C-alpha cells in the first residue's frame, strides 16, 4: 500500500509539475461551465415561458430532469476527450526515458506499480470533477434541486472516468510513443461510444447485449439518482479488467525484454 501511494504521489507530482494538470483542469472547468451556462439559460427561458402560460410554481419544471441530468450526460462524453491525454504518458514515457527500469528493478509488485499509476490519474481526474462541480453550487444557492442525483451523478462520472483510465493505462503500456498511446485510447473509447449508438438499431436482442456492455448506458441511471449495484459492478469490472490487462502486459514486457 505504501509503495502504491508512493507511485501515485509521483504521478500527481508529474501532472502538476508540468502544464498538463493545469490545462486539463482549466479546460474541463471551462467546457463544463459553458455547458452549464447554456443548459441554464435554456432552462430559465423555458421556465419563464411556462410561467407566462400560467403554469408557474417551483416544481413545474424539474431542475434535476431538465438541467443537471443532461449536463452530466454530456460531461460523460466530454471526459472521453480528456482521459487519453491523461493516461497516454503513464507508461509510454517511462519506457522511452528508461525510468521503467527503475520501477521494475525496485522491490515493487506489478500490481503496486499499476495501481499507483491508476490512483494518480484518478486523483487528477477527481480534481477536475470537483472543480467543475462548483458550478452547480449556484443551483443550490438560488434554487432547490434534489441533492441525491447530483451526488450519484458525480459518482457515476468518477466510475466512468476511472474505467476509461484503466483502459488508457493498458494502451499506454503497449508502446513507447505517447502520441500512439493517446490515439489508441481515443480510438478505443470512441468505439465504446459508437457501440452504444449501433445498439439503437440492432434489434431487441442485439440492443440488450450492446446496452449491457455499453459504458454510457450504465451511466444513465447514475444521473437519475439511482445507484444500482448492477451498474457499480459493471464499472468495477471494467476497471479491474483494464488494470488486469495492464499488469499482465507489464509482466509480458519483461519476457520480451
Amino acid at each position, binding site marked *: 500500500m505504501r509503495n502504491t501511494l508512493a*507511485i501515485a504521489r509521483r504521478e500527481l507530482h*508529474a501532472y502538476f509539475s508540468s502544464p498538463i494538470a493545469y490545462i486539463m483542469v482549466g479546460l474541463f472547468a471551462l467546457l463544463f461551465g459553458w455547458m452549464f451556462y447554456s443548459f441554464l439559460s435554456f432552462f430559465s427561458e423555458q421556465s419563464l415561458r411556462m410561467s407566462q402560460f400560467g403554469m408557474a410554481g417551483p416544481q413545474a419544471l424539474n431542475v434535476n430532469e431538465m438541467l443537471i441530468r443532461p449536463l452530466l450526460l454530456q460531461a460523460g462524453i466530454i471526459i472521453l476527450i480528456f482521459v487519453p491525454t491523461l493516461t497516454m504518458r503513464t507508461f509510454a514515457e517511462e519506457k522511452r526515458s528508461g525510468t521503467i527500469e527503475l520501477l521494475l528493478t525496485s*522491490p*515493487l509488485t506489478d500490481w503496486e506499480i499499476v495501481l499507483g499509476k491508476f490512483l494518480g490519474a484518478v486523483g487528477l481526474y477527481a480534481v477536475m470533477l470537483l472543480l467543475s462541480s462548483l458550478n452547480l453550487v449556484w443551483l443550490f444557492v438560488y434554487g432547490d434541486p434534489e441533492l441525491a442525483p447530483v451526488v450519484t451523478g458525480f459518482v457515476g462520472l468518477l466510475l466512468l472516468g476511472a474505467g476509461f483510465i484503466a483502459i488508457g493505462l493498458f494502451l499506454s503500456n503497449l508502446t513507447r510513443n505517447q502520441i500512439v498511446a493517446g490515439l489508441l485510447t481515443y480510438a478505443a473509447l470512441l468505439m465504446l461510444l459508437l457501440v452504444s449508438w449501433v445498439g439503437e438499431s440492432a434489434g431487441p436482442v442485439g440492443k440488450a447485449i450492446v446496452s449491457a456492455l455499453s459504458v454510457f448506458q450504465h451511466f444513465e441511471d447514475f444521473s437519475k439518482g439511482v445507484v444500482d449495484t448492477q451498474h457499480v459492478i459493471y464499472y468495477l469490472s471494467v476497471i479491474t479488467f483494464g488494470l488486469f490487462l495492464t499488469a499482465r502486459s507489464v509482466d509480458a514486457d*519483461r519476457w520480451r525484454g
Partner: protein
Amino acid sequence: MIEVQQLTKRYGPFTAVDGVSFNVAKGEILGFLGPNGAGKTTTMRILTGYMPPTEGRARVAGFDLQDSPIEAKRRIGYLPETPPLYPDMTVRDYLLFVARIKGVPPGDQAGRVQTVMERTHVADMGRRHCGKLSKGYRQRVGLAQAIIHNPDVLVLDEPTAGLDPKQIIETRQLIRSLAGDHTIVLSTHILPEVSQTCQRVVIINKGRVVAEDTPDNLTARLQGAASVYVQVDAQGGDAQAVLAGIPGVTTVAVAEQQGPLTGYEVQSEAGRDIRRSVASALVGAGFGLVELRPMRMSLEEIFLQLTTSDVPEEVARA
C-alpha cells in the same frame, strides 16, 4: 554474494547471453568486460530482476531472483546505462521517491537522502531539476539512487560512459570507496577502468564468458612465454645467431628494420629472465645495444585477442 549459473537469454533465434556463470564474493568489485553488444547489459538486467533469463539461475545475497524477486531486489542497487531520472523532479524529491519505493523506513528517508547526496557530491544540487543536470551530475544522481537503500549488491552498467576525464577519475574513486560496504559488479568496454577499479574481471564476448581472473593474472597467464624486445646495431654481423645461442632463448624473430638498426623479438622459456644474458652476449659480440625492454601484453591486447577471433594472433600482438 552473487551466484550466476548457466544464464541464457534468447530473443527468438538470437542468443544474447549463452550459458554465463560466475560468482562474486562479498565486498569484491567485479569488472564485466566486453565489446558493445556482447551481452553485458542483458546479463545485468537479469541480475537486477528487470527481465527473467530463458534458462539458468541468478541468486543475489542468498535470494533467487525468480523465486523471491522482491527480497532480492531489496538488496540490489542498480544504475542502468542511462540514469533513470525523472526530468520534472528535483534531485531531492527524486531521491526521496526512490527511497520510498526501495523500502527505506519513512523515518530514515530524509537522512538517507542527505547521506547519499553528500557521498556522491550532489548535495548542492538538491533543488535542481533532474532534467537540467549536466551529464556528470546525472550520473552521480544515478549512483546516489542506486545506493540509497544501502544495498548489499551494486550493479553499475557503464558507470563512466560519456563522462569527461576528470569526472571519470572522480567516479572511479567513488566506486572504489563504495567497495567496502557493497559488492559491486560493473560493466565497461573501457579497459583501463577494469585494471584500475576491479579486483576480478569477467571477459564476455558474443554472450559467452571467454576469460575470468584478476587483471594481473590475466595479463600474466595470457602472456605465456616472456619476451624481450632488443634493438641492435649489428654493424654487418649476425645478431640473430648470437641471440639464438643464448641459453633459455626459444625463438628470435626480426620485428623491424630501421637503417643500420634491427629490432628483434626474443622469446624465452617461461619464468626465465634473459635480459642480462642478452645484454652481455650482444655487447660481448661487439654489437651496439640500442634498446632492450621486456614486452608485456597490455590488457588491451589480451582483450583484442580474446574477443576478435578473425584477427591473426600476430596482428593482435603487434
